[in-house]
Structure formats: structure tokens, C-alpha cells
């Protein structure tokens, strides 16, 4: 697969035209919802004329279609925002554009980023880049697939509970989720404000590091963004690595276990100190996640009411009908499921038993991670319990779909930086398998510096 460096030595216009050509060749994957051709070519001409310069000058990229970005509607893969032209751009997109990168299109996702397969898109599912009979993973499925198909060298995703890491694993690319607050959330459709993070897909950890270094930083428009701290680094020591034993049980697919164990052996061979560690509370994290996140979703999605922007039901004769009918027409069933669960766990009489209890459990989870990170630099697990599954396999039962997040939600609830890197291709399934590495909050530079050495060791670079 190509890297960002491969785009040097060509004009921006050549790079962008090549990306559009590849995008059209791969239309059958349904990874892109729109192409931003006119705007991209205009910006490419500006780069070629020397009017825009920077570390990513002339490099094409794709945004997940829940980032507000110019050049095509921002739909969140929903009917609700089918024709919504964003009045502003996300801070992350603005920063990449200021560095010369050129957005060429908008990637498919589960509508409003609710899902783990990109099957919940109002515009049809995205096919897996390696095996088109399998799902792309989700919710940032389209972004993972355009990266894996080499349409662009990097793409933006959002990760609230695993939505970058899991599709990265399913498509054999690198997926990076930063520490909560490292990248501004401004201008990205809010899902769960306390765990939403903005990250990227790339073909190497080096490229992911470069992209994150441009997106990172405090933003006056996001009061939860952290003071600047991220500086790319080179690993200059041997690490203490903990393997989370609760995520390495027989419930995990044997190919996944095999791939992750082989990678762990490679860490040992490289001189790192690897031990098995226990995180018993991890068995409760999916329950915490599916209380806290729907609660935040039910609040954040209250704004989609058909009044100020987006779809509006035409049959409504009163304002309350307008709200109710617009929301039923504009949301997918999974959106409605999560909003209703959120309303349930927040309603009086249930608040203490569910929402409050989940937030207390979250404190215990964070404390357990903090204790482990006193001794270990990096924690390791599979990224997902099994490789990419078939279409429709998990759609009948929401719980089955939620279980595909089992490995990733704990890092989200604790705000940790985490990366999925390709570990192996399953010997029987022929599907890619990822390994997840997590570090303490704000240890993004350490985590990426380690990921870079893992690539060097396996000869991927």
C-alpha cells in the first residue's frame, strides 16, 4: 500500500485526479458517499501555484461524512442530513487544509456513527476491502476501506467506542484513536461527547503520527480540548508491556488469538518485557458503554428536529408532529434504539440504577487502568474478537453487534490513546486481523513511537 511520502514528486493536480480515478474504479465498494471534485481541483491548482504550502501539500485525503467539510453535503450517512451543506468546517479539517492536504470525498459510515459494520448507513453498506462479501466494520467503515484500497494515503474517522480501531483491523490498515481531548471535536457531529475522539486511518504508523501531529492541539471552539502536548518521538527504551488476559480467552476467534500471540512473541524478541496482566472489570465495560453512550446520544441528537437545518417532514401540521415525524423519517432504527435507551436510563426512577451506576463503574475502570499504567507502558489485546463478519450476520440481534466492540470500549471510557495495527492475515479466513495497543492518557507519542518500531521489525516499511 502507498504512503504519504509516495505522493511527493507529483503535482497536486495529478495526485487528486489519480485519487478520483481510483475512487471511480472502486465504486462497487460503496465506501464513498460523495466526491468533492470541483473544490479539490481548485485547491490542487492553488497548491501547484505555490499559494498553499505545508507538510501535506498536495496529498489527497477523505473525511468520514460526520466531519463538517465543504465541497459536498455532510450527511452523517443519514436521510436527516441528506442535503445539508455545512456552514463551517471542522477544526481538524481546517488544520489539514492549512497544511496543504486536499479533501477529495466523504466516506460512508453507520448513520450518525451508530454501529459496528457500516450496515446502518442510509445509503447502503460498505464492502470490506479485502473480501467484498464481508462487512467493512464500523462505524468509520468507508474511511478504512478507501485507505486499504489505496484511493488515498489517509482518511479521517471518529472513534467513540472503537469506530476507528475495529474497521482498521477488519481492512488491514492502521487506525489511531488519540487521547480524549487531543484533537478538537469542533465541527464534528456529536455522538457521545465524553468519549468522542477524532483520529485517522493510514497505511503506516509513521503516517498516522504525521496526520495526528497536524490535527492535535487546543482549540478555543472546543473547551474540552487539552492544552497542546503531543510531540512525535522516537522510542529510546525497552517497554514494559501488559497483555490483558481477560481479552485473550477462548471466546476470541482462534485466528485472532494466533495472530496476536505471534505479535506478542515479536515484542519479546525485540527485547521488551511482556507479562500477562489482569483487568477483571473489563467484563463490565460493554454494559457501562451501552448505558453512558446512549444517554449522551439521546441528548446530542435532540438537535435534529427539522427546524433549523436538515430534513423536515412535509406531512406535519403542528410543531410537535413536525418533530416526531421528521425524527422518525430521518433516523435509522439503530439511531432510534439508542435514543430510546438513552431516554430510559436518564429518566427519573432509573437514573441512579443505570446512568449513575455506570459512571461510578467508569471511575473503577479508570482506577484499574491507572494502577496498571503505574507498572506498564503499553497494554495489548486483540482489536476485535473475530475478523470481519458477513453482511446481515449480526443485524438481527443488537447485542451481537455490540459485542464486536468488546475489546475497544474500555479504552474509550477511560479516554486512553489506542492504535490498531495489522497483526496478520488469518490462515484460513484470509482476512486481516489487528492488534490493539493502548497507553496512559497523553502518552500518544510513546504509543506511536512503539507502533513505528513494530512496523520496522515486521518489515512493513
Amino acid at each position: 500500500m502507498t504512503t504519504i511520502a509516495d505522493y511527493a514528486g507529483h503535482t497536486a493536480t495529478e495526485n487528486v485526479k489519480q485519487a478520483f480515478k481510483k475512487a471511480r474504479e472502486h465504486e462497487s465498494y460503496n465506501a464513498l458517499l460523495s466526491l468533492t471534485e470541483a473544490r479539490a481541483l481548485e485547491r490542487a491548482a492553488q497548491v501547484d501555484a505555490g499559494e498553499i504550502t505545508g507538510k501535506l501539500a498536495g496529498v489527497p485525503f477523505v473525511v468520514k461524512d460526520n466531519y463538517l467539510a465543504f465541497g459536498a453535503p455532510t450527511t452523517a450517512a443519514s436521510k436527516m442530513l441528506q442535503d445539508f451543506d455545512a456552514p463551517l468546517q471542522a477544526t481538524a479539517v481546517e488544520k489539514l487544509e492549512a497544511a496543504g492536504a486536499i479533501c477529495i470525498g466523504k466516506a460512508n459510515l453507520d448513520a450518525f456513527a451508530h454501529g459496528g459494520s457500516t450496515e446502518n448507513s442510509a445509503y447502503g453498506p460498505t464492502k470490506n476491502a479485502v473480501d467484498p462479501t464481508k462487512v467493512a466494520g464500523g462505524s468509520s467503515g468507508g474511511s478504512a476501506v478507501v485507505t486499504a484500497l489505496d484511493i488515498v494515503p489517509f482518511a479521517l474517522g471518529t472513534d467513540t467506542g472503537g469506530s476507528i480501531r475495529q474497521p482498521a483491523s477488519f481492512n488491514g490498515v492502521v487506525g489511531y484513536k488519540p487521547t480524549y481531548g487531543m484533537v478538537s471535536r469542533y465541527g464534528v457531529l456529536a455522538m457521545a461527547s465524553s468519549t468522542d475522539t477524532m483520529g485517522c486511518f493510514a497505511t503506516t504508523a509513521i503516517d498516522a503520527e504525521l496526520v495526528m501531529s497536524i490535527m492535535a492541539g487546543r482549540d478555543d471552539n472546543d473547551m474540552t480540548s487539552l492544552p497542546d502536548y503531543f510531540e512525535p518521538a522516537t522510542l529510546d527504551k525497552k517497554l514494559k508491556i501488559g497483555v490483558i488476559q481477560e481479552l485473550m480467552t477462548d471466546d476470541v476467534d482462534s485466528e485472532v488469538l494466533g495472530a496476536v500471540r505471534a505479535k506478542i512473541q515479536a515484542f519479546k524478541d525485540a527485547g521488551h518485557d511482556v507479562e500477562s496482566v489482569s483487568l477483571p472489570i473489563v467484563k463490565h465495560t460493554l454494559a457501562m458503554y451501552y448505558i453512558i453512550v446512549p444517554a449522551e446520544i439521546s441528548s446530542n441528537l435532540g438537535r435534529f428536529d427539522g427546524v433549523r437545518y436538515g430534513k423536515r417532514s412535509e406531512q406535519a401540521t403542528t410543531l410537535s408532529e413536525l418533530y416526531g415525524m421528521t425524527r422518525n423519517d430521518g433516523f435509522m432504527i439503530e439511531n432510534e434504539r439508542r435514543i430510546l435507551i438513552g431516554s430510559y436510563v436518564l429518566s427519573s426512577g432509573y437514573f441512579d440504577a443505570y446512568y449513575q451506576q455506570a459512571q461510578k463503574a467508569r471511575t473503577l475502570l479508570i482506577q484499574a487502568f491507572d494502577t496498571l499504567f503505574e507498572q506498564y507502558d503499553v497494554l495489548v489485546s486483540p482489536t476485535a474478537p473475530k475478523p470481519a463478519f458477513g453482511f446481515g450476520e449480526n443485524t438481527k440481534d443488537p447485542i451481537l453487534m455490540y459485542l464486536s466492540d468488546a475489546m475497544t470500549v474500555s479504552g474509550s471510557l477511560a479516554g486512553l490513546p489506542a492504535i490498531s495495527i495489522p497483526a496478520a492475515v488469518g490462515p484460513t479466513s484470509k482476512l486481516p486481523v489487528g492488534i490493539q495497543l493502548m497507553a496512559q492518557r497523553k502518552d500518544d507519542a510513546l504509543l506511536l513511537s512503539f507502533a513505528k518500531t513494530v512496523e520496522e521489525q515486521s518489515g512493513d516499511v
Partner: protein
Amino acid sequence: MTQITQDDVRRLAQLSAITLTNDEEIALQADISNILGYIDQLKELDTDGVEPTYHLSGLTNIFRDDEVDNGVDRETLLSLPADTHNNHIKVPKVL
């Protein structure tokens, strides 16, 4: 195991301002009962004396300079709603 009725679903839909069809109510009744059955496991966890974590950044009282900036202009914002009148957003009758 928490079971909810179709009336419960209708009440939740009302709280959420979503008009559901009868079929959707029945489907969501089954799904939500299953999901509540799953998340009920959290009640086993002893959290006595534990403070809840509502947000992670640890930041408090973040201020910015009180300076006027132009932001998004009015014409752009008024191009977004389905219906406007005299620089206002128009909606159907409230009652």
C-alpha cells in the same frame, strides 16, 4: 430480567420526540428489553462510596477572551432551514 411493555416504548418515544409506527414499537420493545437485560449485569458491581466520572479531561473553568468574531454569517445560516420568512425560521402552528 427487565421487561418493558409497548406502552413503555410509546412513552420513551414521546420523551424522545419520535413518532413510531406500531410495527416499530413492537420491534423496539423486544430489542430494548434484550439490551436492558444485558446492561442489568452492572447492578452486580459494588460501587459503594465511588464517585461518578462524568467527564475525562479534568479541565475546569476554561475561559476565552470576550472578543467579537464574525462567525458564520446570517445569510448562510438562513439558507439551511426548510422554510423562512423575513429572516426568521418558519414552523407549523404550535397548538
